[in-house]
């Protein structure tokens, strides 16, 4: 399938190069060239944080999805003009001439396409960031599962950059909802991007009175995801009882989506600078911080309850902030997980990776029942880690972390594991398993509050078929998706259910203690 990146791979002209070292002033440069825009200032701030030394600025022609956007705005406003289109790129090392880019391509920190739109009939004359990608900070505490690799051209040089696409609204053919959706879909769709024309076409097919500058409603967002074969769990908290804000908190779904690599959208009421009191804003989330020493998991509010008296410690307890974009202010912000008050958040979407039929929150709930039920049957097991796990389970101090993986990714992970004693899994067993497990799985990793943050290790995982629909019609059929559980020294494979009681076949594992977590 062809990728939608013509607008990124176009050659530039009128190339200018600037050393960012003092006395260069980003403030002066932005004010001279663009005016006062928070989003553009944020790009320069990110470049400063990454110690960028060089800025390259090029003019580019509007190609691909930018050309489409121009046509669509012109249809709405015949006097419309895309006055300027610039590509700026920030480089860690000094670049003397554009020809040097070839030898310094590994030091690209970020790029942005800046678009100047003029609509005389509505006195509109503004710059916006059509898109930008900045690599994440190298800090270990910033985690971006499954970042995307974007191809682009700077000068005549073909390059790639890893990150998550940031996009800004222009209030002409796109608002916060369209740009948030494009940001996340750019790493999930085989075309590696989506045009605003396509987003707006789908939105228009849902509502006859659709006006692209007014954003998207929930039904339109759902339809855009479904039309692209993406499954999701979303909650509109204004449609359910208030208790749902506590029982199914938005943070839980947001974390599940971003940790599995699908990302999440959160929609909230906001009364900040430049926004009307009743403004509803939506932003994409794609990563999280990981704070080993946070106190939060010790607090009761960190505990996630599935039902009366049964719960676990979710892995997001060690997350202080989500990583996301806010199109009003720019890319790659840390958004404190507990900062946005729960009664301000009206909508959350946990987007599943393509091909996945149910979500991480659901997988963790099923894993809880299986682990808490299986362990008492292993009481006579002599493995000390099983004994510890039984003890922690009785106190419900178990950490779960749900990951979606292809079968190849899981088998490669299993083959790479080494327990604390240096043992590795039987390679014949891994080879056999590779032929037998579903093509896409949920692996719910099992750990404990002392092992998970400090060592970033686990005691096993419970594996489910992610390609099957969940059948919640009766309590037994929910477990149809079970594939196996891996615990220290033991795999447990499922089987027949007799009188509502399932049986499990224990198969030996060479991994006798804790192993590394999945890192995608």
């Amino acid at each position: 399938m062809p990728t939608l990146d013509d607008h990124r791979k176009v050659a530039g002209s009128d190339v200018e190069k600037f050393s960012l070292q003092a006395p260069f002033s980003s403030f002066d440069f932005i004010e001279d060239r663009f005016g006062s825009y928070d989003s553009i200032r944020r790009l320069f701030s990110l470049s400063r944080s990454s110690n960028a030394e060089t800025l390259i600025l090029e003019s580019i022609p509007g190609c691909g999805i930018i050309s489409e956007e121009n046509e669509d705005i012109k249809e709405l406003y015949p006097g419309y003009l895309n006055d300027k289109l610039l590509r700026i790129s920030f480089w860690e090392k000094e670049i003397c001439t554009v020809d040097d880019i070839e030898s310094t391509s590994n030091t690209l920190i970020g790029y942005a396409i800046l678009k100047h739109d003029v609509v005389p009939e509505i006195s509109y004359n503004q710059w916006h960031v059509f898109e930008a990608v900045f690599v994440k900070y190298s800090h270990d505490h910033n985690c971006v599962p499954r970042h995307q690799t974007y191809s682009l051209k700077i000068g005549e040089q073909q390059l790639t950059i890893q990150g998550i696409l940031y996009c800004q609204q222009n209030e002409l053919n796109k608002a916060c909802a369209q740009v948030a959706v494009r940001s996340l879909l750019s790493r999930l769709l085989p075309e590696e991007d989506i045009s605003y024309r396509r987003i707006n076409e789908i939105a228009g097919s849902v509502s006859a009175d659709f006006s692209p500058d007014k954003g998207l409603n929930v039904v339109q967002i759902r339809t855009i995801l479904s039309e692209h074969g993406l499954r999701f769990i979303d909650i509109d908290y204004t449609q359910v009882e208030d208790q749902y804000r506590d029982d199914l908190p938005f943070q839980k779904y947001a974390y599940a989506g971003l940790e599995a690599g699908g990302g999440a959208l959160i929609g909230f009421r906001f009364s900040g600078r430049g926004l009307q009191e009743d403004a509803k804003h939506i932003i994409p989330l794609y990563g999280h911080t990981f704070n080993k020493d946070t106190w939060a998991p010790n607090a009761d509010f960190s505990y996630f309850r599935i039902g009366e008296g049964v719960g676990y410690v979710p892995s997001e307890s060690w997350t202080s902030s989500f990583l996301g974009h806010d199109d009003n202010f720019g890319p790659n912000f840390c958004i404190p997980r507990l900062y946005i008050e729960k009664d301000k958040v009206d909508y959350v979407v946990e987007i599943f990776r393509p091909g996945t039929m149910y979500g991480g929150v659901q997988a963790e709930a099923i894993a809880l029942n299986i682990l808490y039920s299986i362990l008492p049957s292993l009481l006579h097991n002599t493995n000390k880690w099983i004994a510890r796990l039984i003890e922690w389970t009785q106190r419900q101090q178990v950490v779960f972390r749900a990951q979606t993986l292809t079968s190849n990714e899981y088998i490669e992970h299993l083959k790479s594991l080494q327990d604390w004693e240096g043992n590795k899994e039987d390679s014949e067993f891994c080879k056999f398993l590779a032929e037998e497990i579903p093509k896409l799985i949920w692996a719910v990793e099992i750990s404990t509050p002392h092992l998970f943050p400090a060592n970033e290790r686990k005691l096993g995982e419970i594996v489910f078929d992610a390609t099957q629909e969940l059948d919640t019609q009766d309590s037994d059929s929910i477990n149809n998706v079970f594939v196996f559980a891996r615990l220290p020294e033991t795999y447990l494979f499922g089987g027949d259910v007799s009188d509502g009681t399932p049986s499990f076949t224990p198969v030996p594992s060479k991994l006798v203690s804790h192993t590394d977590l999945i890192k995608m």
Partner: protein
Amino acid sequence: MKKQATFGNADLAKKIASKFGTKQDVVKVEMRYAKEVQTFLRKVENAHNKAADSKLVFS
């Protein structure tokens, strides 16, 4: 006719046990929180289904 519930793939369990052996006899396990998990999952589904009636607009 209602599909018979299984707990994973019984054939896979037999195949893998015959090739790699078993640690102990097959264990029967009473699922302790089946009702709680079903109630929770249906609550999630219920909330998701109700979002179809949402009137929220994000601009």
